[in-house]
């Protein structure tokens, strides 16, 4: 569909690619942004990284082969690598989103409840950031966009049942860590 061009109709195919990309942008940009904001604390940085994801995707789009992978798998692989590169550069492994906490706590009436909620969120984020890479990815993909286990499996190159096991195990692990921290 996307890459069928001969030299003669190169321009025509390229234009078709651009139109296809524009449609996919509308569909996937919010999803990619949600994925990035799950992992990056700073909103402006999350915007920059989302922009970087789509710039890379646009630059490589002529090489995208839908026979090999779905666009979802392809774009989330780029997003994942972009976030990994970001952490590699900044060497930040803890991604606590302070202003998400602020917004999330706004519904709590008393300052005390707000403070407890913010602290719980901060701690839970810390526990998530301490998970191994595979567990983190499964959690982020599941909770940032409500992806099915099959979609996550395609992106992480795992089997669907593997993803299910990882999610169950990870949720229980988080629950255990959280409970231990609360009982300290």
């Amino acid at each position, binding site marked *: 569909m996307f890459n069928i061009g001969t030299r003669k109709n190169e321009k025509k195919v390229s234009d078709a690619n651009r139109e296809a990309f524009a449609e996919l*942008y509308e569909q996937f*940009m*919010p999803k990619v942004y949600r994925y990035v904001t799950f992992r990056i604390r700073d909103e402006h940085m999350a915007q920059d990284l989302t922009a970087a994801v789509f710039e890379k995707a*646009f630059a490589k789009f002529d090489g995208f082969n839908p026979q090999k992978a779905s666009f979802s798998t392809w774009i989330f692989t780029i997003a994942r690598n972009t976030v990994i590169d970001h952490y590699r550069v900044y060497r930040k492994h803890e991604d606590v989103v302070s202003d998400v906490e602020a917004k999330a706590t706004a519904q709590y009436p008393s300052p005390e409840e707000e403070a407890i909620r913010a602290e719980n*969120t901060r701690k*839970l984020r810390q526990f998530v950031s301490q998970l191994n890479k595979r567990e983190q990815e499964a959690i982020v993909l599941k909770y940032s966009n409500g992806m099915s286990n099959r979609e996550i499996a395609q992106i992480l190159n795992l089997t669907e049942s593997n993803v299910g096991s990882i999610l*169950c195990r990870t949720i229980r692990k988080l629950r255990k860590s959280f409970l231990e921290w609360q009982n300290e």
Partner: protein
Amino acid sequence: MNKKQQKDKQLLENIDKAAAGEKLPDESGLDKDTRAALELSREMSSWPKSPSKEFKAQLKADLTHRVVEQQKQDLSKRGDPEYRNFLRRPAWQFTIAGFGALIIAAIIFLIVYLVNR
């Protein structure tokens, strides 16, 4: 299916619902651990943010600008494809060949005329 597998299946189904923002069924039938796990699921589902309309539009405009720039670069590298295609049209090529033949015939005629004069 053993008890642990059943619990895992139930947990996964409820995780999917929580992650998709769906309302969960009556939780009183769930065991304590599953309820607690779902509490964390709901919390994590609230973390990601949707992009603002401004950011979405701005990024789209930036990418569109990039497309236009790329098209300009392509044109300057390869020449105007419309112009190249025009030159390749058979009617145009036939006209040029006809004019060429006419000029050559005129020159020959002129030479023959001058020689015989």
